């Protein structure tokens, strides 16, 4: 009898725990806070908070690049963040996503095609050698000469010259407004060129930069350990002794680590995590706005033949309820966007796009004209939110007579179907990094420049010309008009359809950590202000 009672109590306890764990997620998810504690900041480190402890950060996946640890070939935001702890760039971005000085203390633009950078005089590589103008010239030249993803983002560089001990001049063949923003991302990092050319450092396996930290250990897919770069100007004021980055694949485990204090900060994938952590003492969860955004590919080349018709594609585009995606999938924490990420200066207003009218009757009429459609919608499992977005789209398109079957596959399978030639899908969901200048991501709507999109979209010469104009027009009203044209053309062609911004959810333990986190981020670098973090 006693055994039965004990077993019953145990089962009841488990059931209660299960219910406790599920209650929050089943109701409307209370969105993580995006309240700013200071203009542009979700959190600002308290200078008086205890410091010197070990900082533990948990993330969901590790960097894995074909180019190893070479920052110039880094293609993912995770690599940009982790390698950005060790390397620095000429420029950086501030809390308003505006370009700010980095290793370049200042710069002048004698003409709209020339940039003269004055380098910081206190930048020192972690091996103790001061950075020189030759390192800057060599790094940018290497990036220009080696065709990697970021090479195209640097723009039409004609020459890179050292014009003084601490001065570098870059000349472009034509105006390119995103140039300074492109220099702010990790692939444009300044490398120790003297050591690379002498063969004493292999930067595909070892990191040697001027950044605040040095990677002292790395076990792939398990853990990184970073220690301070004693030569960095902020070394003496760092608020922690070591940084450990644990790779923890399971979202619930990362949430649990925040709850029990074994992690100081964790990157979360789901806004529902805020619900799971709502009762936890000393844990704060916040949503960081990103310029990254989700988009829908409508395959006009290898998909259903009806998708070659722009009217059909626009019907699909205009049937999608972006506000419903924001509300149902993101708990209202994000924003609808056009091709240029919403929130960046000069970006287009998505509410002015033709599809935003959401004329369901007109869309249904266009679909009826082709006798209805049965389409597959491909998503990959690494990004669980894609399946949720897919469900909203499935319901939206059902309203206009389109039957959508959602296929969830791993990323390798997805990649093999979407980016292979010929491509093998009707609809597919993914996301783009939005970067820090609104013209940068528009490049991907030109299939010739992008390459990868040429297997599922044809684009148009009008759109290509508009993209080029948007990139070369100086920031301001004129560029806003040019970029509005890009958004409008892309919206009408409906081959890659922007949906909503892709926010980051960040949790941290307020009892242990006092961090500085910006409210907006352009390169997925949650740890951008790590030199200000303080851990007791």
């Amino acid at each position, binding site marked *: 009898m006693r055994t039965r009672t004990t077993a019953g109590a145990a089962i009841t306890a488990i059931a209660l725990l299960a219910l406790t764990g599920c209650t929050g997620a089943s109701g409307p998810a209370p969105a993580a806070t995006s309240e700013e504690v200071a203009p542009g900041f979700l959190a600002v480190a308290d200078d008086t908070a205890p410091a010197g402890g070990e900082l533990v950060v948990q993330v969901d996946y590790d960097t894995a690049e*074909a180019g190893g640890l070479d920052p110039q070939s880094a*293609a993912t935001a995770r690599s940009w963040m982790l390698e950005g702890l060790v390397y620095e760039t000429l420029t950086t971005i501030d809390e308003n996503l505006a370009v700010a000085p980095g290793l370049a203390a200042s710069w002048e633009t004698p003409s709209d095609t020339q940039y003269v950078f004055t380098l910081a005089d206190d930048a020192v590589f972690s091996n103790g050698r001061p950075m020189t103008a030759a390192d800057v010239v060599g790094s940018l030249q290497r990036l220009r000469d080696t065709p*990697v993803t970021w090479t195209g983002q640097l723009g039409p560089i004609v020459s890179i010259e050292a014009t003084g001990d601490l001065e570098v001049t870059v000349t472009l063949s034509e105006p390119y407004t995103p140039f300074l923003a492109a220099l702010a991302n990790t692939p444009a990092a300044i490398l120790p060129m003297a050591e690379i050319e002498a063969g004493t450092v292999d930067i595909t396996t070892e990191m040697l930069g001027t950044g605040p930290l040095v990677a002292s250990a790395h076990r*792939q*897919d398990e853990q990184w350990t970073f220690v301070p770069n004693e030569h960095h100007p902020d070394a003496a004021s760092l608020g922690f002794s070591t940084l450990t980055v644990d790779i923890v694949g399971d979202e619930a485990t990362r949430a649990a680590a925040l709850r029990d204090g074994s992690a100081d900060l964790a990157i979360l994938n789901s806004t529902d995590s805020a619900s799971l952590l709502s009762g*936890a003492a000393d844990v704060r969860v916040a949503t960081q706005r990103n310029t990254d955004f989700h988009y829908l590919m409508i395959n006009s080349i290898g998909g259903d033949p009806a998708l070659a018709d722009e009217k059909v594609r626009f019907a699909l585009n205009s049937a999608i309820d972006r506000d419903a995606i924001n509300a149902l999938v993101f708990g209202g924490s994000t924003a609808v966007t056009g091709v240029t990420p919403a929130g960046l200066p000069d970006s287009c207003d998505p509410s002015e796009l033709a599809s935003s009218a959401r004329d369901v009757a007109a869309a249904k009429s266009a679909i009826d004209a082709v006798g209805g459609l049965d389409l597959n919608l491909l998503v990959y499992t690494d990004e669980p939110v894609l399946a949720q977005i897919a469900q909203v789209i499935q319901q939206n398109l059902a309203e206009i007579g389109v039957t959508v079957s959602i296929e969830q*596959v791993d990323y390798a399978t997805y990649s093999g179907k979407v980016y292979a030639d010929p491509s093998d899908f009707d609809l597919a969901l993914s996301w783009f990094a939005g970067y820090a200048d609104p013209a940068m991501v528009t490049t991907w709507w030109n299939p010739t420049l992008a*390459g990868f999109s040429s297997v599922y979209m044809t684009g148009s010469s009008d759109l290509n010309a508009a993209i080029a104009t948007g990139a070369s027009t100086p920031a301001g009203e004129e560029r806003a008009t040019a970029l509005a044209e890009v958004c409008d053309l892309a919206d009408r062609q409906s081959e890659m359809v922007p949906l909503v911004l892709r926010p980051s959810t960040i949790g941290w333990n307020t009892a242990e950590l006092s961090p500085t986190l910006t409210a907006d981020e352009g390169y997925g670098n949650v740890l951008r202000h790590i030199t200000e973090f303080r851990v007791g």
Partner: protein
Amino acid sequence: MIVVLWSIRRVLAALVTLAGVSVLIFASVRLMPGDYTDLVLGPLATEAQRALAVAASGLDLPIPEQYLRWIGGVLTGDLGYSFVSNVSVTEEFAARLPVTATIAALTVVVTLLVGIPLGFVSALRAEGSAGAVGRFVSALGISVPEFLLAGLLVFAVSTLGLGISVGQYSSFAEDPGRFFGSLVLPIVVLSVGCVAVVARNTRDAVLNVLVEPHVQASVARGETPMFIIRHHVLRNAAVPILTIVGALVAVLLGGTVIVEFVFNVPGMGSYLQTALGRRDYNIIQNAVLLAAAVFIVTALVVDLVSNAIDPRLRLTGGSRR
């Protein structure tokens, strides 16, 4: 002599099986959609980057040559390098196998200490409340999925502050206390299912033996229950129990994906899962081949031990009655 010949036959059969398995593994991996270079480079990579990565990973070689290179390396102890980390497969496995082996060994110990007595009690008290509890616990343990139990434990220990942290793995060399502490929850989760399976099989095996004529004759002779269990039941019930325990050992050594993933323990299971997602062919091929080898060797050992335990198996060369 019969045992020796039987063993030689089994070893040869195992080698042939492994050779066949190696072909299946290699073909399966190559038939998976998408490959490492597509995945790691992503869609934005340039053609030059793609060509470089393909050449560096050896994927530009003809498929038969890729197989022969791999299997030749296996035979000479050179398992190649991980595409992702560029570290030798041997080194990668050496870091993870001890973790999985420790989890497997401790889970088996818990399973034997709890599962076999539970099975005996269930069988000997089949009609009473103890038997009912045993059956219920067995059914529950088999029915509860690992991911559910693991998720509940993660939530429970992090909420209730039980002094156990989730996901705070440390290697034995760095911190032995933390190493074993990080294995407690994975072992608990795995043990629940394993105990249930062993208890259930033990119960069935014992019940089967209890109705054998020689046991009933012992009862008729007035021998004590303990004597009957020790001399007539234990040994006869051991073979089926050993078989199921052997299978569990093989499965556990092959990798315990879910618990390793949920509890962030860097063993072979979670590593293989990550490698599959990244199409890290060298890791996948060698890990699956290793798991197959473990399974075959374990089955071989179980058969040998069964032969030693049960003389009837020896006489018939492995086929009982």
